[in-house]
């Protein structure tokens, strides 16, 4: 690891003692505790809560980066994300919705990061795979299915769980079908073709209400089913009174949390395997990678399909959580949105993609509306701000600036990929095992 002691900044000198040693444990525990108390004692939706909420989410990243024992990080994570946040959600549903949304986009950003960050394939139509999963559940769980064939009826809501797998497989298949022909193309052509594909999917969704009504066109699909709550009776038996909507919010929060965790594990393991190395090699120098026997198209296809399958799963979850989908949900801006998350965090970096997803989602749902409110107040007070300027309506401008500024000043992202020691550790364990094997023989 490159440590340059001479160039340590003031910031580093201040944070160094807090990120390792016993002080770190105390600091982190205190930090999480303070944020939790502040959140739980003031569950109203206002600027101060926003700030505490952001600090609370940040605590997870700080914990992740600091050098404390793994079990401690796990405990902090379980307490904060598994207990405090959902409980806070029962007090103020707005924030749990933000967290769930952030989770959905984290999984999407992690998936796109496999394609863009690991394999270096710029996919501007990523949201198409998300749409495939969402429409699959949307069509099969509602009477829309009877429009295709009157003999068919909607599936049982409990089929939601197998549909997560079906969404994954559909994403995978779509990814392979699109990838197979286009992955031979040079990188920049690929970007345009995927963008075109994303638009095609949207146009098709918009127009496939004729001759057979498959997607219900621009009307979209309403009243999408949610899965039955499994342990709802037990919860009620405990004497907790909560209406279905609250319970569903918690349900989706936990579901998304679990999916994100699984995604992180899968993505991290892929990254540190022969497959991840091959992707990185292709990204760095295709000719040299192929000269090492790496099958270029097959490896790219694998990245493309894996990324697409994550989007397929999240599509099913998203449709079920939102209850309503229509073609504009899956427009180019959404793809760019996810891309901006990956780029902001740092292409190829797993914590980076997560950080990017959280920042962008919070920006979208919390910070921009808040700024808009502040501006409106300033306007009312007579500040010279054009009446038409509403920051929540200028996401393109914001993401555009973000992309350009990041590319010019920090193309590696806020949290660039770093080579960590952990894998080294695992290898040593495996080495010992090998030695033991030899000795046994």
């Amino acid at each position, binding site marked *: 690891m490159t440590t340059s002691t001479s160039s340590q900044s003031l910031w580093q000198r201040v944070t160094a003692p807090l990120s390792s040693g016993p002080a770190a444990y105390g600091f982190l525990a205190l930090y999480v505790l303070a944020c939790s108390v502040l959140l739980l004692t003031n569950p109203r939706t206002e600027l101060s809560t926003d700030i505490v909420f952001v600090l609370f989410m940040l605590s997870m990243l700080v914990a992740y980066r600091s050098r404390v024992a793994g079990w401690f990080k796990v405990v902090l994570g379980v307490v904060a994300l598994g207990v405090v946040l959902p409980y806070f959600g029962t007090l103020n549903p707005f924030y749990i919705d933000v967290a769930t949304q952030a989770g959905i986009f984290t999984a999407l950003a992690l998936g796109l990061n496999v394609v863009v960050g690991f394999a270096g394939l710029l996919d501007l139509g990523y949201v198409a795979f998300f749409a495939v999963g969402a429409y699959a559940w949307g069509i099969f769980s509602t009477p829309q299915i009877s429009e295709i064939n009157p003999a068919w009826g909607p599936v049982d809501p409990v089929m939601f769980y197998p549909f997560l797998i079906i969404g994954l497989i559909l994403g995978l298949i779509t990814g392979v079908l699109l990838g197979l022909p286009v992955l031979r193309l040079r990188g920049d052509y690929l970007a345009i073709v995927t963008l075109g594909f994303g638009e095609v999917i949207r146009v098709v969704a918009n127009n496939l209400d004729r001759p057979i009504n498959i997607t219900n066109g621009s009307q979209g699909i309403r009243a999408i089913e949610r899965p039955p709550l499994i342990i709802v009776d037990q919860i009620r038996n405990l004497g907790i009174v909560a209406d279905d909507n609250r319970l569903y919010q918690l349900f989706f929060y936990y579901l998304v949390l679990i999916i994100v965790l699984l995604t992180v*594990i*899968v993505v991290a*393991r*892929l990254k540190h*395997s*022969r*497959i991840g*190395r*091959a992707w*990185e*090699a292709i990204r*760095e*120098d295709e*000719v*040299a*990678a*192929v*000269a*090492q*026997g*790496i*099958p*270029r198209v097959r490896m790219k296809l*694998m990245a493309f399909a894996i990324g697409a399958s994550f989007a397929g799963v999240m599509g099913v979850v998203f449709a079920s959580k939102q209850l309503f989908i229509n073609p504009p949900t899956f427009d180019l801006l959404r793809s760019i949105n996810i891309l901006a998350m990956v780029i902001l965090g740092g292409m190829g970096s797993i914590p980076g993609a997560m950080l990017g997803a959280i920042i962008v989602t919070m920006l979208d749902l919390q910070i921009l509306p808040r700024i808009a409110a502040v501006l409106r107040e300033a306007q009312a007070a007579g500040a010279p701000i054009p009446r038409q300027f509403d920051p929540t309506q200028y996401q393109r401008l914001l993401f555009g600036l973000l992309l350009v500024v990041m590319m010019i000043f920090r193309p590696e992202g806020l949290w660039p990929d770093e*080579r960590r020691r952990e894998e080294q550790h*695992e*290898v040593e364990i*495996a*080495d010992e*095992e*090998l030695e033991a094997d030899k000795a046994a023989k």
Partner: protein
Amino acid sequence: MALLEATNITKIFGGLVAVNDVTFTVEPGSIVSVIGPNGAGKTTFFNVLTGIYKPDKGRVVFAGQDITGWRSDQIAALGMRRTFQNIRLFGNMTVLENVLIGMHVHLHASIWSIIFRGRTMVREEAKARNKALELLSFVGIADKRDELAKNLPYGDQRRLEIARAMAGDPKIILLDEPTAGMNPHETAEATQLIRRLRDERGITVILIEHDMRLVMSISERISVLDYGSKIAEGDVQAIRTNPRVIEAYLGKGAAGQAA
């Protein structure tokens, strides 16, 4: 039987005949050199052999298989590896990872075994790392395994490229100007390394080189290309005295003086 047999290879770019009807045979366990003035088509010839270019005419047989028109990665997987004239390492990966990339075709862990971190996968990785370290000690840079490849000094980058090529357990390695830009001391070390490739590992070596002293000291056979055509072939002595070779290198008239 010859390990590598290229027959009547022709490669044309637009109107330029870069390689013209070259026939070239390599016996297993030998060290052969391809020499010629700049622009003689040596690297293009390597690119045809390793599948980066498809030949317009001719065929290539390697290890008993007709590999004409195969993709680069298929040829590499069959056991033909190369280095590049202008060093093409994966600069942002560590030295060790560069060698592991070279082993890609010998690693078979399935995607499931990777996701669930199966025992076979963990062991395969550990074995691969051990082997990579062994290769790094063979070329003498084991102590630099965790450095980024781009931060290595020039000579070590050349060594790493050779280690990476060795990682695929190749039958043959094609070295494209392995000592370009080296001082005499480094060149001597590189010569040693090339010799050890063959003597200790039994790997056949084809060399493109401009350093005549190296070529003459190490090669068992030499082929000379000029303007895309093979103008001479033979052992060191035969090439040294071949008037056409002297003419190609030194210009018309020089041949007479030398003879």
